């Protein structure tokens, strides 16, 4: 089992993500610089970490999504490589078209950092299977632009296909239909604004994030 974390200029949860992966797989994750053009073929799971790639300038995730490595990421996603983006990583995934929709400025306009209760909407995805019927988890959120937007047709399709994986219990940012995390059609690409990688150790105040990492690793 080999995992990797992609680092963009001003990614800042890359180490957090790597720690979570190491905790679950028992092996250090490989760090891949955004200028590289290829994800090594033996990598089984890729995380796009949180942070402020390119300072969030222009639009969050926009400049990072045009990085050389993302081209290869898109190609490998189509072939089924599991890829997860958290926070800024989710923004990169929507900006690169791997996930539908976009993330707008929080409705309240302020940055918001707090523990957030989420409901698991679909416990049968590759990212939630190990929650064993658990209905609610708490992950920290920390973002300024987490307000999920997609047009109605897209939202209806997401719901119909069971691709809304997590919803906010108590919407913190104005997201459409309380959506917190979604998967692509293939079920291999997942994105969410909350930070499961910051809920893997009792020191964090909870370990609910472990289930997500275990699920995807188990599924490979």
């Amino acid at each position: 089992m080999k995992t990797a974390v992609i680092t963009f200029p001003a990614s800042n949860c890359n180490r957090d993500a790597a720690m979570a992966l190491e905790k679950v797989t028992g092996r250090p994750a490989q760090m891949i610089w955004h200028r590289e053009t290829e994800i090594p073929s033996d990598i089984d799971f890729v995380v796009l970490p949180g942070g402020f790639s390119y300072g969030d300038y222009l639009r969050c995730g926009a400049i990072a999504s045009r990085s050389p490595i993302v081209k290869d990421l898109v190609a490998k996603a189509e072939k089924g490589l599991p890829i997860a983006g958290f926070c800024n990583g989710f923004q990169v995934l929507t900006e690169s078209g791997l996930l539908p929709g976009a993330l707008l400025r929080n409705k309240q306009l302020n940055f918001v950092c707090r523990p957030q209760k989420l409901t698991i909407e679909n416990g049968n995805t590759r990212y939630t299977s190990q929650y064993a019927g658990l209905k609610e988890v708490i992950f920290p959120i920390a973002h300024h632009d987490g307000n999920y937007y997609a047009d109605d047709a897209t939202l209806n399709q997401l719901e119909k296909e069971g691709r809304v994986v997590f919803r906010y219990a108590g919407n913190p940012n104005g997201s459409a239909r309380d959506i917190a995390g979604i998967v692509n059609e293939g079920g291999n690409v997942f994105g969410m604004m909350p930070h499961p990688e910051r809920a893997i150790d009792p020191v964090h105040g909870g370990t609910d994030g472990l289930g997500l990492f275990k699920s995807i690793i188990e599924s490979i």
Partner: protein
Amino acid sequence: MKALVYVGLKPGVLDPQGRAIARSLNDLGFDEVTGAFQGKVIELNLSGDDKDHAKARVTEMCEKLLANTVIESYRIEIED
């Protein structure tokens, strides 16, 4: 040459910043404000002097980076 690119949210996409601006202006006593929308202007300095070519290139820049067409629309002006 200079290009001005105006990027705004598409109609129908909620604009929380615009709404907050309108509300604050009303609160400050500017009752005549009935709505506000916030967009971006990106000014580009360009080498070369073929305006038509520049327009085509800037359009490409918008599609590739400057605008997210899921939520935004754009308009381009080329100046000397």
